[in-house]
Structures are given as C-alpha cells and as structure tokens.
C-alpha cells in the first residue's frame, strides 16, 4: 500500500461519524458537543458529495487504491446520495431533538453517555451501507447497524425496552446471518462479491438461492409482514429520538439493499414481485388493524411503520416485473417520505409524552396540558403518512398508483386506497384526542409547550409536507448514475 488513501467526500461521509463515535465514547462529558459537531461535519460532507454527483454523475472512491474484487469501493450515485442526504437531514434534526430529550433534567447519566457514540456508530453503518458496492461490505454494515440499533433500543433501560431490544437482537442477527449465507452462495458461484459481478452474472440456481436467502434476511430486518413481530415493541419502547432513528432510518437500509439487489441480480420471475406485493398488502391490512387497536401513542406510530413498509413493497410490486425499472423510483420516494415524516412523528409523540406525562390515547383529552406545537407537528406528519397533498408521501403514492393503473394492476390501486382510509381512521383517533375539550376539569392554558424542543420535529414535518412539491427534481436526481455501471 504505497499510496495514502485519497481523502474525498465518500470517505469523509463514512469516517467523520466513525471518528465522532470513538471520540464521544472516549470523552463522555463532551459527548453531546462532539456528537453534534460530527453530525454537522457529516452533513456538510454529504452536501458536498451531492453537489459533485449533481455536477459529474456517480462518484467512486477506491479505498486504499486496492480496487475490486479485493478492495472496498465506495460509490455514490443519485439513489445513494439521496439516501445519504435523507440520513443526514433526519439525523441532524433528531440530534437537535435529542439535545432536549436527553438533557440532564430528563435523562439519566447512562443514557446521556451512550446515546451519542451509539448514534454516531449507527450513522457510520448507514452511510457505509448506502455507499457499499459489494455484498460482503453490506453484510458488515448491516451488523454494525444492528449492534448500534439494539443499543439505541435498550437505551431507556426499562424492562420492556430490554426485552424488546433482545427480541430485536435475535431478529437482527438472524437476518444478517441469512444474508451472510446468501453472500457465501454468491461467492461460490461467481468468485466475486461486487455489484458489477452480479450484474454480469448469468442466471443460475445457486444465485437464485443466494437471492432468496439475502431477501429473507432483509425482510426480517426491515420487518415486512409477517416478519414484523419484533418491530412494534422495539420502536414503541425506545426513547423518542432513538425510535425516530430506528423507524425513520434503520429499517430503510434493508429496503435500500433490497432495491439494489433486485435490480442487479437476475430475477427469477414475476412470482417474487407478486409475493412481495402480497406481503406488503398483508402488512397494510394487519398493521392498520393493529394501529386502530393500539392503546398507546408510540405503539400506534410503530404499527404505522409496519403499514408503511408494506406500502413500500406494494410500490415495488405495483407494475409487476415489467415495471421494475420504474417501480424502484416509487418505492424510493416512499422510503424518503416515510423517513422524514416518521422521524417527525416519533419526536413529536415523545414531546407529547414528556409534556402530558403519559401516552395513553384514550386519556389524552383528559389532560389539561396540551403541547400545541407538538400536536400540530404530529398532525402534519400524519398528513404525509396518510399521503395527502402536497406531501412527499402524496408524491410517492401518486407515482405508485400511476404505475399500477397504467399497467392495469387494479388490486394494487385498491390496496393502496384501503391503506389510505385505514391510516385516516387510526390517525384521526389521535387527532380527536388533541381536539376534544369537554372531558376537562380545569381550563386549558393557552399555547402550551411552545418549547424550543418542538422546532426539530416541526422542521422535519414541514419538510415532509413541502418536499412533495419538488418531487420532480428529486426523481431526476435519483436517476443519476442509473442503471448501475452505465457511468463510472
């Protein structure tokens, strides 16, 4: 290794949070400062990278100049960069929200000490996964993400949180190992692990088995019905900023890898696509019913994540195998929309819980304390998750339904509409609690809870709401460097 590794933006995007994680762990008293600085640095690097991708197309870095198949390549095309930007943006505002949630008055010393290193480690894993160009690297990143995510789940330290975290841990390790097994099959068949090799490969039974194993692992990690059993508990019992990260970002990595793999690997046939859509439909119905029955606000929000994951798979399946070349864009838009809106929703749900003192949906209207701005934020996030205009969720749903209708796949149109109505029903349970006043004994004070802490979720919710208006440029950006390998 004669050359020093050239430091450029993809490298910085991965190593800035890693350095931050190490520093924050070594220096717990300054963890918050280091953490925030590191997140800001990462965000700046992502912004710079995005500008370069916009100007030059896909950017590739050969770490240590080894090159494939032995070395590790980092590659940023439109889709990668968009997900990096999503992670940076959501991460930045969740970090700001965390400053309040984990303020000394609210959280114990242990929580404050470990949040930042875990979150930065998670950020490293996320960014690494989005830039990876080979399946083994993806496996490693999945494990890094899993460990950090489990740590974030149990951060609150309660019994429920630890139990849910352990359940999550099993699901996560198992998912990663299934993925690893698939990786093994790929290597045995092709003798290489990079995406370029996958694209060039001829269909073979071993590759089909590899794809099946990897997809099974990813579905477990992304909690597609019926493999969602671990998600509601883990996301509902974590502390609010951790839930925001888990629901907003972590489940998206597996979806992203799924999108990549299905594009690069020779697909068996339409059966897989239909199966994914059917499971997605199951998630929409089952998750919707569970959300209608949920007694706690955060649990409802967690079930809504199950629903949205289902919707993303329906988007993927919306036009059958023929439409795959287009479908991934609908899915990617919905991934983006869900990340931003769900982070806003979890943060605001956490704010409501902090202010009111509980999050039992039935009793929200009995409380004379009404954190108005947090409730408003929750409603805005719900608008995007339901998919009402002009939100990003609407844009995603539009592209989904457009494709399904154009292809004549009316069942996907129908399931999307049913999902929309279900989401109206379960979110309006919460909104009614915000707006009901006749069960109060004491008058409500005005404008409660206009705390600075509400700004982070509010900005995210407003972004989710207004980004739909620039869906066209987002879609155009997504296509930079697509299909893979067409440009350097």
């Amino acid at each position: 290794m004669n050359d020093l590794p050239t430091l450029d933006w993809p490298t910085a995007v991965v190593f800035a949070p890693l350095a931050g994680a190490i520093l924050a762990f070594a220096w717990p008293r300054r963890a918050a400062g280091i953490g925030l600085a590191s997140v800001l640095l990462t965000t700046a690097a992502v912004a710079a990278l995005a500008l370069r991708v916009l100007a030059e197309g896909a950017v590739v870095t050969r770490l240590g100049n080894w090159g494939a198949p032995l070395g590790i390549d980092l590659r940023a095309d439109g889709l990668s960069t968009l997900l990096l930007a999503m992670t940076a943006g959501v991460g930045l505002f969740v970090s700001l929200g965390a400053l309040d949630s984990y303020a000394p008055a609210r959280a114990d010393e242990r929580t404050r000490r470990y949040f930042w290193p875990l979150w930065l480690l998670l950020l490293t894993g996320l960014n690494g996964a989005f830039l990876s160009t080979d399946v083994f690297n993806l496996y490693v990143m999945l494990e890094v993400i899993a460990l950090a995510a489990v740590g974030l789940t149990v951060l609150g330290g309660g019994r429920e949180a630890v139990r849910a975290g352990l359940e999550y841990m099993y699901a996560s390790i198992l998912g990663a190992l299934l993925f690893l097994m698939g990786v093994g099959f790929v290597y045995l068949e092709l003798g290489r692990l990079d995406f370029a090799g996958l694209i060039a490969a001829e269909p073979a039974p071993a590759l089909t088995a590899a794809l099946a194993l990897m997809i099974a692992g990813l579905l477990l990690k992304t909690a597609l019905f019926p493999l969602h059993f671990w998600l509601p508990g883990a996301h509902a019992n974590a502390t609010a900023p951790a839930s925001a990260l888990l629901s907003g970002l972590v489940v998206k990595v597996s979806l992203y890898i799924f999108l990549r793999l299905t594009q690069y690997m020779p697909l068996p046939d339409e059966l897989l696509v239909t199966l994914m859509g059917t499971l997605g439909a199951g998630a929409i119905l089952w998750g919707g019913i569970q959300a209608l029955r949920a007694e706690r606000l955060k649990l409802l929000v967690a079930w809504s994540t199950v629903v949205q994951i289902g919707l993303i798979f329906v988007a993927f399946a919306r036009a059958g195998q023929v439409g795959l070349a287009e479908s991934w864009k609908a899915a990617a838009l919905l991934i983006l929309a869900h990340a931003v809106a769900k982070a806003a929703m979890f943060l605001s749900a956490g704010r409501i819980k902090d202010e009111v003192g509980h999050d039992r949906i039935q009793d929200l209207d009995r409380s004379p304390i009404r954190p108005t701005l947090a409730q408003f934020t929750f409603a805005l996030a719900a608008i995007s998750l339901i998919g009402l205009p002009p939100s990003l969720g609407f844009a995603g749903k539009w592209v989904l339904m457009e494709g399904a209708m154009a292809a004549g796949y009316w069942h996907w149109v129908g399931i999307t509409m049913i999902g929309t109505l279900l989401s109206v029903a379960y979110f309006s349970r919460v909104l009614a609690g915000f707006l009901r006043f006749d069960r109060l004994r004491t008058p409500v004070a005005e404008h409660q809870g206009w705390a600075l802490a509400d700004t982070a979720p509010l900005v995210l919710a407003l972004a989710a709401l207004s980004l739909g208006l620039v869906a066209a440029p987002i879609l155009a950006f997504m296509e930079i460097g697509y299909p893979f390998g067409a440009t350097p």
Partner: protein
Amino acid sequence: MTDAPLLPLFILLTSLGIAPLLFALPERSAGLRTAINLGAAGLKVALVAWLSWKLSQGVIYDLRFTVLPGLDFNLQADPLAILFIALSAVLWFITTVYSVGYLEKGPHRARFFGFFSLCVGATVGIALAGNLFTFLLFYELLTLATYPLVVHRGTAEALRAGRIYLIYTLGGGLVLLLGTLGLWILAGSTDFVPGGILGDVAEAAPLAAQLLFLVLVAGLGVKAALVPFHAWLPIAMVAPAPVSALLHAVAVVKAGAFGIMRVVYEVYGIETAQALGLTAPLAAIAAVTILYGSLRALSQDDIKRRLAWSTVSQVSYITLGVALASPIAAIGALAHLIHQGLMKITMFMAAGNLAEGLGVKKVSQMNGVGRAMPGTMAAFTLAALAMIGLPPLAGFVSKWYLATGGLEAGQGWVIALLLGSSLLNAAYFLPMLHRAWFVEPADAAPGGLARRRIGWMLAVPPIATASLVLIAGGLANAPFSPLEWTRFIVALEYPQAAFDDLPEAF
C-alpha cells in the same frame, strides 16, 4: 399579454400566508389578530378587484412549476376563477368581521382564525387551479383546514360530526385522486381548457371516458353534497355559526360544485359530455338532490339543520344548470354560485345571531323574534324570500335562467322541478317568517326572549350580505354584476353561443 404573473400567487398568499402568523399569535392579542385578519381580507378584495380589471383588459395570468414529471402546479386566472374568488374574497371579509364578534370571548381563537384563513386560501387555490392536479391539492387542503373548524367546540358531538365529515370528504378526495390519475393516464394531461381535453379519448374509448366521469363526479359530489353523498352536510352544522356560514356559502359545498363545473366544461367540454350521454344522468341526480334536500328540510326543527338541508337542495341548482347543457342554463348555474352564497351566508349569520342574542336555536322557538331582533330578521327574511325566488331578488334571477335554459334545451320537466322546489322552499321558509313576525312570543318559551345585546360586528354582516342579495337581483344587468360576468364566461365555454346572442334581460 402577460403581466405581473405573480398576482394570483399574492392573492393566494393573502389568506395562506397569514395563517402561520395567526397560529403563533398569543390568545390575548385580539386586537392585532383582528387587524391582521381584516387587513389581509381587505387587501385581498382590492387585489381581486385589480386582477379582474386586468383580466378584462386581456392580461393573461399563468403561473406554473413542475411538481411531478409532466405535472405542473398551475395557477391561472380565468373569468370563471375570478367569479369564485371574488365571492370568496368579499364573503371572507364579511365573515371575518362576524367571526371576530362571534368568538370574542371563546377559547382557541388563534387556532380558529389560523384554520379559517387556510380554509379561505384553499378556496382561492381551487378557483385559480389551472389543472385538475392543482385543484386536487387545494381540494384536500380544504378538507384538512375545515376539520378543526368543524370540531372547534371540542365536544363529543362535535368530534363525532368531525369524524363523519372527515370520512366523507377524505373518501371523496381519494376518489378524486383516482379520477385525476385516470385522467392523467387517459389524456396525458389534466389541464382545464375551455372546450375540454377528452374529445379524442371519448371517441377512441367512450366507455373509459364515461367511467372516468362517474369517478370524478363521485369524488366532487361528496363535497357538493349530491345525493347519496350528502349525509355529512347536515351533521357538520354543529360547527360554530361563522364556520357553517362559510362552509355553506363558499368553501366546501361550492368547491364541489365548482369542480363539477370545471370537469364538465373544461375537462370534457360540454359537447363531448353530451355526446357521451353524461349530462342527462347528472341532471337527474341534481334533480333528485334538489327535491330530496327540500323535503328533508321541511321536517327539521333545528334552524341550522333546516338551513343545511336547504343547502343540499340549493347547491344542486348549480349542478343542474351545468348538466342542462344550455348556455342560458349555464348562466343560471354560474349566477347561482354567487347568489346562493350570498343568500345562505345571510341566513346562517342571522341564525347565529338568534342563538347568540336570544338563545333561539329551534324553529319552534322563533315566535316573535322579529320584534326582538328586527335588523337580523329583516336580513333573514330578505334572503329567505330570495331563496324562494321572489322577483327581483337574486334567487329569482338564477331560477329564471335555469328555467329558460331548460326550455331552450327542450327539457320541459325543469320548469316543473323548479316550481316544485320553490313551493317546498316556501313551505319550509314561510312558517319561520310567519313565526318571527306574526306570532306573539309565548311566555313559557325556554329562555323567554331574554335578549342579550349583540355587538355591531354580529349585527351588521347579515344586513350587508342581504343588501348584496338585493343588489345582485335588482341590478343584475349592470356592468360588473355577477350576472354580466357569467355571461362573459358562458361565451367562453360555449363557443357556439356568441356573447351578444345571450339574453340580457328577463
């Protein structure tokens, strides 16, 4: 000639832009809030006046940017749009005055006025939308902005009503989304163009075009309260009086009726719609709604509920006029868009005054209220007589054109329908007037007629709108009256009917 392309955007922002400000204002700064509200409402009236003047000079406003590949967010100021925003601007101003008076002491005023202005902003967007896609955006915004207004009182009853309202309107929105997508896929465009964009599709795939019409009208019919999608409207009257006034006069039901107008005239084009055999069923639905709403209104004792059923009936006059496919009936439909708004808002504000000043909420309690509140009841009476269709009031003008149009289109049954409906109108309004003016108040009436003083902010607005009812009817042929403006629009939508051929007097 294109000039100041941002003017429509400014008009939109006078309502939408102040909403965040109003939300953020502390509850107690009532003075500042009122100043912002009235300032913006006044500014809007002025801007709309300027816009309509510019438009009559031949200036074209077209603002667009791309939202999704091939799909634009598009604001266009055409004469039809001006008609609707002029109504919304004038009525916003008057209702704002009324709301300030009505809610002076109530809770959550910041929230109320914030959503109120969002709601008005949404109607402006609906009016200015240059394509169905943009229309859909504001149509949904309207639903979302009115929900907190409907449940404003925060009682279990209000929330139940709000839930039903939300289910109906968001369901309708979803169906409209489906229709918009269908249009986009079939026609490759969602633009509103006089004469329509579906002519070719209708020839190639008439069944698809017919189905699409069904979907679009179902989506719009929910807000327009067409039977069988009308049930939410009488329930939603639990909202505070100014909200009901605005909902029934300009915001929600009118958005639906306006949408149907756009779809028939500018998506299908009246000739295509006729060729596909779509106008006759639409007219039939409208006719059923007109009679059914009136019949149900007869048996309501709650004043606001009776008015709400009356709205179900009256708004369908607009749909009827569109569906008759005759230029003269179209004039009636457009004029009724304005006239019904003026009449109904007067009646709802008067009903609110009765509840505020006398505690009277039911028809059976109305004995002698005329003497207790002469100004309010005079306004109510004028509006009621206009609704019945007494010449030369506004309602008569609409009905005259509808009837003439029906004859012209060879649809004689319309005369019978209008006569029947007028009789029903009389049957449910005249007893109210009779009780108000000619029956002595019973001493035992609940609450007596213990009169509470209402301020000028409540007393003046219904009188102002009632005067507009009088003016719109009496001076129907004056330049810049609603009727004149509608003739201008109809000349655009019916290319075969030249402006000068359209009948001027009645």
